[in-house]
């Protein structure tokens, strides 16, 4: 009798565990034009783009804006951005660095750029950004002008981003992608200020 109770209890635990696995595997991005990634989504979202792991980069670049993950642009784009001329007119700001710091950060970006990345979302950014001359006179590549970025954001009304004082521009990833600093960009983690969840 005792044995059968134990057996039932163990079976129950086994079934419950299986149920939990089923739930955990159910966490995928439901964007209708996105392939499901293998191995994605246990209880905690897995980063879509490898998180930043360089203290100099976080300190130097993160002092004015979010330290965008290197996997959000291909190497040739980072090379342009990190050139002395590119830094002195950095999207309308002056972001000049000493050669030593510049070389250090450039090496980190190139070693982890989109064309080096293994994660499929990051691979999508490996296609070079569209080149277009900006009003501020810079023609540097922009994450927001990559084909993949534009495709992923084409349904978002401007009033929720550029027209939303709590966001301001598509450059402010972390305003809506609450896990952006950790490299998490899946739709489940999106919460638009003043609007909430984004449902496709």
């Amino acid at each position, binding site marked *: 009798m005792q044995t059968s109770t134990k057996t039932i209890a163990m079976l129950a635990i086994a079934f419950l565990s299986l149920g939990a696995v089923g739930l955990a595997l159910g966490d995928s991005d439901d964007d209708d034009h996105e392939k499901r990634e293998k191995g994605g989504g246990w209880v905690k979202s897995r980063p879509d783009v490898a998180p930043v792991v360089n203290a100099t980069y976080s300190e130097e670049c993160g002092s*004015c804006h979010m330290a965008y993950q290197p996997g959000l642009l291909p190497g040739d784009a980072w090379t342009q951005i990190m050139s002395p001329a590119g830094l002195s007119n950095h999207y309308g700001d*002056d972001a*000049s660095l000493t050669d030593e710091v510049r070389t250090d950060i450039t090496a980190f970006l190139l070693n982890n750029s989109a064309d080096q990345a293994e994660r499929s979302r990051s691979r999508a950014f490996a296609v070079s950004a569209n080149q277009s001359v900006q009003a501020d006179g810079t023609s540097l590549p922009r994450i927001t002008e990559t084909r993949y970025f534009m495709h992923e954001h084409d349904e978002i009304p401007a009033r929720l981003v550029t027209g939303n004082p709590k966001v*301001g521009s598509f450059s*402010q990833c972390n305003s809506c992608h609450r896990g952006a600093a950790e490299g998490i960009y899946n739709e489940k983690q999106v919460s638009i200020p003043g609007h909430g969840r984004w449902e496709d």
Partner: protein
Amino acid sequence: MALPIASLAGDATAGATGWTKEYPQTDGSPARSCVTCHNRDLTKPGRHAVTNKTIEPLAPSVNPQRLTDQAKVEKWLLRNCRWTLGRECTPEEKSDFISYIETQ
């Protein structure tokens, strides 16, 4: 503090005047001054004009880390003078700014 630019006797009053001086921009953007990003009151946080990111107060009285890292001071004076004034600051202007910030 052993800043070479501070070896010049900085004039805090001149620094204070320079702090609010507005420089018209050629690209159609509004005139800029140090106040644009750093606030009129240096004991309060500022805000980056482009990215809106909070800038910690510059006043050493509330932020003792300020003016303690020479490379950082040099870096920001170079960048921010070029961005705001459209040219690099002279050594005198830099030491005036530092002297002014020190009094805050």
